[in-house]
């Protein structure tokens, strides 16, 4: 073996979370090595819509089994929102950040009631939103169609170009000495002295000893954790996005739906992106996940109902991307119980939460308190009881 590297932290997965963690760790003076199985930022982080979801989001994407706990997210969204505001300055790069606000629309009385309810939560969490009736919403955004009966407006919603964010984080990390190894899949993760020995590369020739491993491997998060000995119940999925041809500026705001899977916005290049978490045809962790024509139809039909002008545009392309979802649809962040120094991060709204989770991972690596409460978001909840003797015992005691 040709020399073993040492690092203060090894990050597995150069997606947006890994890149954000690398930025925060390297800037704090840690020696960081990033291992990426393919090209940095290609998978979920390069295929996502790039929405900054600050107001409470639609709680169930198409095909999703468990609804999100929207209220639990709001303090996290509030904290992430603040960090996005200063991100371009922090990274010294444009990420096409745009905070021009967004609407979440309702088409039924039930959905209208949901908007009113979430508005109350948002107010409580310090996220300013406003409930508008259909006509007021159309006055504010004339492109909204006649089926919209109400909408919430949040000035903090926005967009950043996912194809710029991850590279900007990685460049910043590199300036602080972090080293990215693309096309270097991790082969083994072994306990080594007090820390970990990570073996990577196509021929396994890249070996790094480190006290801290950060698993931000997206849809592969569970596989990487398994190498370290942790069985996490993950449920990765692939969802898809659709892009129209370019248009002069026409839609300044993000448009989402409270009851169905929909997000529409116009990006800096002029294309309109239509998404909303519709399931792809395949999730292929070895190759390229394929989009579904059924989801294309469903998503476009919904989009053209809420924003009828879309019907006159042409579809340019569609693509699918994998996500590291959890069975309970909540974010995942924390140290794996029983595996000191092995941190994981991923799951729902990873893009919106990236600046927050990057900072949180640095705190965890330094054994400092995180900036937000993540006690209920750790990996313990996704582990079998067999791996979790203490919990198991406790549960039995309660039963008795």
């Amino acid at each position: 073996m040709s020399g073993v590297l040492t690092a203060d932290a090894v990050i597995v997965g150069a997606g947006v979370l890994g890149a954000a963690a690398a930025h925060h760790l390297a800037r704090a003076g840690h020696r960081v090595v990033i291992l990426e199985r393919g090209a940095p930022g290609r998978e979920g982080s390069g295929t996502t819509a790039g929405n900054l979801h600050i107001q409470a989001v639609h709680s169930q994407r198409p095909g999703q089994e468990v609804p999100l706990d929207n209220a639990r997210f709001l303090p996290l969204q509030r904290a992430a929102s603040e960090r996005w505001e200063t991100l371009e300055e922090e990274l010294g790069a444009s990420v096409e950040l745009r905070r021009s606000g967004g609407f979440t629309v309702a088409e039924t009385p039930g959905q209208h009631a949901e908007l009113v309810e979430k508005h109350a939560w948002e107010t409580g969490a310090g996220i300013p939103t406003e409930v508008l009736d259909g006509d007021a919403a159309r006055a504010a955004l004339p492109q909204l169609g006649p089926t919209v009966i109400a909408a919430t407006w949040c000035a903090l919603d926005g967009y950043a170009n996912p194809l710029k964010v991850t590279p900007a984080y990685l460049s910043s990390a590199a300036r602080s000495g972090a080293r990215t190894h693309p096309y270097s899949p991790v082969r083994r993760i072994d306990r080594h002295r007090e820390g970990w020995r990570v073996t990577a590369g196509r021929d396994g020739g890249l070996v790094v000893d480190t006290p801290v491993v950060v698993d931000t491997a997206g849809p592969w998060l569970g596989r990487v954790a398994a190498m370290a000995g942790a069985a996490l119940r993950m449920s990765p999925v692939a969802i898809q996005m659709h892009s129209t041809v370019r248009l002069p500026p026409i839609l300044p705001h993000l448009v989402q739906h409270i009851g169905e899977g929909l997000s529409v916005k116009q990006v800096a290049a002029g294309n309109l992106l239509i998404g909303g978490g519709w399931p792809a045809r395949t999730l292929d962790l070895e190759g390229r996940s394929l989009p579904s024509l059924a989801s294309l139809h469903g998503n476009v039909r919904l989009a053209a109902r809420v924003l009828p002008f879309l019907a006159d545009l042409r579809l340019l392309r569609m693509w699918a991307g994998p996500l590291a979802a959890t069975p309970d649809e909540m974010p995942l962040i924390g140290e794996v119980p029983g595996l000191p120094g092995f941190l994981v991060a991923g799951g729902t709204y990873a893009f919106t939460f990236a600046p927050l989770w990057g900072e949180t991972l640095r705190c965890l690596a330094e054994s400092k308190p995180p900036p937000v409460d993540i006690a209920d978001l750790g990996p313990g909840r996704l582990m079998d009881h067999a791996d979790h003797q203490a919990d198991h015992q406790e549960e039995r005691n309660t039963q008795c």
Partner: protein
Amino acid sequence: MTADHWNEPSGAPETVTRDVLIVGGGPAGLSAAERLAAAGLTVTLVDEQPELGGQYYRRPAPAVAERWGDHRPEGGALVERVRAAGAECRTRHTVWGVDDDGRTLLAVDGEGRPVRLRGRYLIIATGAYERVLPFPGWQLPGVATPGFAQHLAASEHTPIGERVLVAGSGPFLLPVACSLVDLGVTVVGVAEAGTPYRPRPAALGALRHPARLRELAGYVTRLARARVPIWQGHSVVRAEGTDRVSSVTVAAVGDPAAARTFLVDALCVGYGFRPQTDLARMLGCDVRTDAVTGDATPVTDPRGRTSRPGVYVIGEAAGIGGAPTARARGLLAAFDILIREGRPPARRDLLRAGAALRGLARFTELTGRLFPSPARLTSSLVPPLPGDTMICRCEAVTAREIRAVAGEAEVPAPVDVNAVKARTRAGMGPCQGRECGVAVAALVRSVAGRTTDANVFPARTPIRPIPLRALLATETTPETTPKTTPGASPDALGPATPQEERP
């Protein structure tokens, strides 16, 4: 969900189900359709253009035909035979994708209405794209491909300019120059990047193809008579102009110092053709990189069978060989289907078609030896391009931007074309990278030394931008009565897993 579907389509989309579905009405698709329909199978042939014939048998506009005649009357005769044999011909149909079942093709007709197309056998005869390579000024109006000039000449009897320079490489340049001369255009010269017309041993094989030699000699004689010089071993260095191209500079390949500039009002540059494989790739047909051309090419056998059962790729889409080869491939695919359907053709027909294809393959191989390989041309012409050369015209991405990303030191080089696409937007425009993909890959290779992925942008749905309105009317598909041979299962193909080329 109770919101009323006010933009619901008025009727269900049309579903066409046949024994054989053929995409592409050029020489290959027409030849297959004629035989299959004549043998009694239900056949539908779809084509994007308003008239059948493809690029080679392009039909002149009626007024042009009346006044100037048809440059290739055998094409019109073939189309007539196809119709007479009972094949359903649908023009102005754009096939844009493959449904989730992996075998139903999705199309829009000329009025933007959705059409779903199913066949127990699918024949992909989508033809070729012209091979274009970027150079400074190639985005100027007045710069076109030889194929476009030929199209204007044949179907509209319209010259592309008054003073035209023809450049690139391949046997197609001479007939295009001749067509322009026939229209009264001043062709200032033909710049051929290779040296195919110099006597040398490799050319001796041409003696076995006297008809082709006579054709070539005819072109050379006509150009000489019109005093059109042919510069071998020369390529376009740059085109200049303000509103449109006004001058073009030509130099010896590898020696830009000895450059000459010509005043023109149009410039035709093309490096031959490359297979149009998007649909074959979406259907999951295996592809490989052709060593000579560098193109991703479907893996086919001489009958046109692919890795997908019941899916055939024929004609230029299966590898560039010219119209006679395309017709032979069409026949062989038709014969193979007829054998599988228990209606074998006469043994003599089979033998003759097989022999024709082998003879044509020898000729194609000879042509390949005379002209520089497209892979080599690409790797010699693209890497030296100046930094401000526009590589992706759709998204206005320059060579400098692509080199910067491919050679970036901070973040180790994303040495694959798809990573460069993500970072620069090269290949994200309406052409989906079909125009610039080859050049982007060549630049990445020249900077990074290698590429880790397939050198091709993936085939993305839709193949052509399609109106969202057409999608709104597609959704569910009640089956219409299948028009197929009794007893035949319309589901013979089974599902596909579309493949991207892997190195």
